[in-house]
């Protein structure tokens, strides 16, 4: 009897199955495509970029220029070019680990997990932001919540709710992209209690390194509206030659370039 019932359910299940995705296939595929596009925008097999980071807080304003290399999602190395006082300070990310090189004391230190939530270089980014490898399309349930014209531009909004097993810190993420080229304009990050925690805006979209990219990225903590961290890309190149050995503690310490 029990077996019959379960077989019955399985049969119904298979009957329903093909029709269910079919209903929303277009939306599903395109929202996934949008998220993958946003995720891969600044990534490539490898990349090199120079940028200025401006941090404005209630207590200080600072501007540093940086150069950085990335390879896949696992490796990146960022080095401070100016100001002079911090020149040579570098961060290496390999997998889930972060090391900092401190030229003043000529030492490398590994950032312990207890400090991952701490600010990176005094900015509004945390060390965690650097190492997170989440792919939005994999870690969140996503759906399109807006598809139309806003302020004269055709826009698409996607709402992302984390999957139960995903290791992400946000309670909800809302991504807004331009419909014509899927370039992101704004991402809102909400906390566990679904209150807005920070907003990332993308400004000055133009062609860089052969791609259409926002050249300015600004992050605003919601509870401190007058504060922000802004990154302006000055130069970016994708799919450059980088040896495996480049992302090593030795490179971090020696300050060599590829």
């Amino acid at each position, binding site marked *: 009897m029990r077996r019959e019932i379960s077989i019955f359910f399985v049969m119904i299940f298979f009957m329903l199955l093909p029709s269910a995705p079919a209903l929303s296939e277009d939306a599903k595929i395109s929202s996934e495509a949008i998220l993958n596009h946003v995720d891969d925008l600044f990534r490539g097999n490898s990349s090199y970029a120079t940028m200025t980071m401006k941090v404005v*807080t209630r207590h*200080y304003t*600072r501007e540093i220029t940086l150069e950085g290399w990335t390879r896949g999602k696992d490796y990146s190395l960022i080095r401070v070019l100016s100001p002079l006082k911090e020149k040579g300070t570098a961060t290496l990310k390999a997998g889930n680990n972060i090391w900092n090189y*401190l030229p003043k004391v000529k030492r490398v*230190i590994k950032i312990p997990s207890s*400090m991952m939530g701490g600010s990176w270089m005094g900015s509004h980014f945390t060390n965690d932001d650097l190492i997170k490898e989440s792919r939005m399309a994999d870690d969140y349930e996503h759906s399109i919540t807006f598809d139309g014209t806003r302020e004269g531009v055709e826009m698409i909004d996607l709402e992302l709710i984390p999957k139960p097993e995903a290791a992400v810190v946000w309670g909800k993420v809302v991504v807004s992209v331009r419909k014509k080229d899927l370039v992101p304009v704004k991402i809102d990050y909400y906390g566990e209690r679904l209150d807005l925690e920070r907003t990332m805006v993308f400004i000055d979209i133009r062609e860089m390194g052969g791609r259409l990219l926002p050249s300015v990225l600004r992050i605003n903590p919601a509870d401190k509206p007058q504060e922000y961290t802004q990154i302006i890309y000055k130069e970016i190149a994708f799919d450059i030659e980088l040896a495996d050995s480049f992302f090593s503690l030795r490179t971090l310490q020696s300050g060599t370039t590829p």
Partner: protein
Amino acid sequence: MNMFKIAWRNLWRNPRRTGITLTAMVLSTVVLIVTYALMRGMIIDMEHSVTDITIGQAQIHHIDYRKERSLYDIIDNPNRIIAYAQDNGIGVSPRSFGYGLLSSGTKSAGVQFWGITPEMERTVSKLNENLFKGDFLLDEPGMHVVLGRKLARTLNAGPGSELIAVVQAADGSLGNEIVYVKGILKGIGETLDRSMAIIHRKDFESLFVLYEGYHEMAFNSWGSMTPEEVASAIETVSAGNEVKTWRSLMPGVSDMLNTFDGATIIFLAIFFLAAALGVLNTLLMATYERIPEFGLLKAIGTSPLRIIRDIAAEALVLGVFSSLIGGVIGIALAVYFHHNPIDLSAFAEGFNTAGIVMNAQWRAVLTIKGVAYPVMVMWVVSVLAALYPAFKAARLDPVRALTHV
């Protein structure tokens, strides 16, 4: 006067009986005085172990500091407050705090840096005496650090070790310095043991790029004023800052001490009662034994009032005499235990309960109350204990009193 002379003479007509009573009373007085002093000593030691290690009797902070512990919430008008405290004989130590990372090769830990001026810190706390290994900071800056005990274990560091300090400096840059471990503190409480890294004020300034301002000032009068008095004195010059006594900074510990204080009073009351009953019993027996004697006095025409008066006088003389001896011995013992504290280190090397570090040396503390209460109790008990049989004797028929056994 004559009455007391007669009483004195009467007492020594039976030296053995008087001797026994006297011994009982002297012993009780001594025990009470010493117990009282030891209990007092324990409570005072507990309070001091809280206030004298780091907290002080009172503290001030910027009004928002304790909520957010932000590097930028510094105390208003610090120099005026420091000058005022010093003029009034209150020890003051300005401190700066900042969070960061200490790292030694593969091991690293998040720490709270304490930027202190050693010569001022000495006027408030005994941090410099609480060392497990090595030495305290020198009066001159030198990138030395003194670590909490568990922190040192985490970093696997000892005196002489070289560590790297990395902090988020006040200007947003990544402050970093090599620091050398100078000493390791004894256990002074779970949180501090795990997180405390003490550096010289001047080293703190360059590490955190924070050249002025303090996050905390601790005050200690070392017992010459109560914490409340210290707080209200400081309050007069601390407009805009938050002034708190150690009791309101650590309400849990304060409540625990109050409870302990209450328990001590009950304990002492039971002790007093037991001693009083012992003396009462001895005196009662001694007086009962003399009932035939009182019968004789009555038979030769002594008035009942006179009998009661004489017995009361004897009891009072005995009480005063024994409390004098007991008082002297008790005070001597209490003073001895004050200077030669009872050593509990055989049982434990300092106790640590809920942030209170108990000294392994149990010191007695003698107070006026601690002598007055036992002495007064002896006087009252001795007179009361004698009066009841005296009344009985005075009202007795002389013939029956004479044959009373």
